[in-house]
């Protein structure tokens, strides 16, 4: 079944290439923009470095760094045929880099369901990516290797009214306490719902950063602020909280 799907996929790719050459009007590229909010308030890197957000647990906090990886952007049409816009994207809010991009694959106009993977699925996670290595994005071998899904860092005010750093780093959950590493998958299949692709479609995806601290787990930064990569259960909680972090903002 999986094979069939990939054969179908490959056929489609050929098909679309072919069309590309003869008839550019038919297919179109899709442009993606990633925007960020904290419960409705716009967040760019100019809002970084100042304590000005309050999380669900009531801690006041700042953001100093935010970058994350998405991959496998997929458009599935009503016939269940899917177009995979190949590659992966490191979205670096800190440096305002990679927030907008246009995958090279071109798509016939139509109605599709849009989805992507937050992080890497397990197949993709254990390849070697020189650009990600150069960006110091890899995960130590002792935690199974692969790559970070997200690095969110900043400061929060603790019980003693002191500013304390936090490093909310999402990776594939791993328990390394025993002889063998025990994994739980924590990449997120984000389903953004239906979009209509026409000529020069621009899709805006929004991440509500506050969600990472909100539902279903009210995140307690005083307990969980650092050394979260080897913390299997914290990783699973991030995965759960990330389910509703992304939404489709607009399609134009």
């Amino acid at each position, binding site marked *: 079944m999986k094979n069939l799907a990939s054969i179908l996929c490959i056929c489609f790719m050929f098909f679309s290439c072919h069309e590309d050459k003869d008839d550019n009007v038919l297919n179109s590229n899709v442009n993606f923009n990633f925007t960020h909010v904290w419960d409705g308030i716009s967040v760019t890197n100019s809002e970084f470095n100042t304590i000005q957000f309050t999380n669900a647990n009531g801690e006041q906090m700042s953001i100093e760094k935010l970058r994350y990886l998405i991959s496998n952007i997929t458009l599935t049409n009503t016939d269940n045929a899917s177009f995979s816009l190949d590659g992966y994207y490191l979205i670096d809010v800190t440096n305002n880099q990679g927030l907008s991009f246009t995958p090279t694959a071109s798509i016939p106009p139509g109605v599709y369901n849009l989805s992507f993977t937050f992080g890497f699925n397990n197949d993709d996670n254990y390849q*070697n990516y*020189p650009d990600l290595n*150069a960006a110091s994005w890899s995960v*130590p071998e002792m935690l199974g290797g692969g790559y970070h899904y997200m690095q969110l*860092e900043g400061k929060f005010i603790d019980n003693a009214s002191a500013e304390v750093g936090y490093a909310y780093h999402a990776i594939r959950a791993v328990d390394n306490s025993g002889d063998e590493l025990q994994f739980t998958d924590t990449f997120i299949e984000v389903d953004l719902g239906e979009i209509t692709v026409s000529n020069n479609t621009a899709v805006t995806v929004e991440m509500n950063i506050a969600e990472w601290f909100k539902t279903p787990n009210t995140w307690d930064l005083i307990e969980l602020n650092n050394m979260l990569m080897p913390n299997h259960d914290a990783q699973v909680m991030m995965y759960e909280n990330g389910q509703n972090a992304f939404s489709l903002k607009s399609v134009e």
Partner: protein
Amino acid sequence: MKTRLLHISFILSLVACKSEPIENYVDAPTESPLQIPTLFSENIIDPVIPINNPQTEEGIALGKKLFFDPILSGNNTQACADCHAPENAFTDINQFSDGINGVLGPRNSMPLFNLAWNYDEKFFWDGRAFSLENQALEPVVHINEMNSTWPEVEAKLQEHSEYPELFQQAFQTLTIDSTLVVKAIAQFERTLISSNSKFDKYLLGETDLTPEELEGFNVFMDEERGDCFHCHGSDKNPLWTDNIFHNNGLDETFTDLGLGAVTGDPADNGKFKSPSLRNLSFTAPYMHDGRFETLDQVINHYSEGLKNSSTIDPLMKKVSQGGVGLTNDDKAALKAFLLTLSDYEFISNPNFTNP
């Protein structure tokens, strides 16, 4: 089929060469692309070479000569190499280096290697120079360093018995100016590649590490102990730096604002570029102000000496207790590992020593 095509194009290019005027053919400098080490080509992206300054044999040789020549200084007494000596991985042994006037600068000299892999091309501790070429403009005129002027240097080089000919060979012009001087120096600097440490050889399967060195690598990579890899590279990033600016908790208040003075953003105060951890055996003292003479002091700093400030990096943990508090065994192992990143072939490479 493919080879046949190659042959044809090879023949074509030979023919094309033949038809070129003879003078040009003789004058053109010989291309000398960087030899990229295996671990670099496998794991990280290509180095940055400006299109308008390709590496050539003649350019590199000229750059090397200039780098070691005190002619670039106001009173002909100081060369780049005085503060960037090959045996010290191209830094010096002083906390602060003195310029030709005997005045000490405010910062520790920096080692020079793998500079073409500084992808953002921000040079100096505070990143104020963009590109290696631009960087080299500064020390020549800096009052605490070589304290000359570019017109003066250009004139001295122009009147020199050898340099005009060497510039002719490298850049096909007899007219020497600062742009060409820094281009040649940058070409030489880009050849300073360090990739033959014990740890490199371990990764290539050519040697083994001791159990202590291996354990030290674990401390380095363990978020609950050293957690150094977020800023200082790893087995996947052979530069052993992220080339990014951080405040690693040296001070509560800053006499030197670092990146903050360059960007004007108070959130950048006290941030300096993470140095590479290669070649630490040769590069003491450490940090932007050379405050630590030994690696033990550095490790103690991260373990229990952290000082809080508003811009301290969030990765600096348990700051109120001074750090994560490594055990003595962890400290010793970490140090043993760090020393495996030193590259003895680099400091004795004849291509890099005074001609």
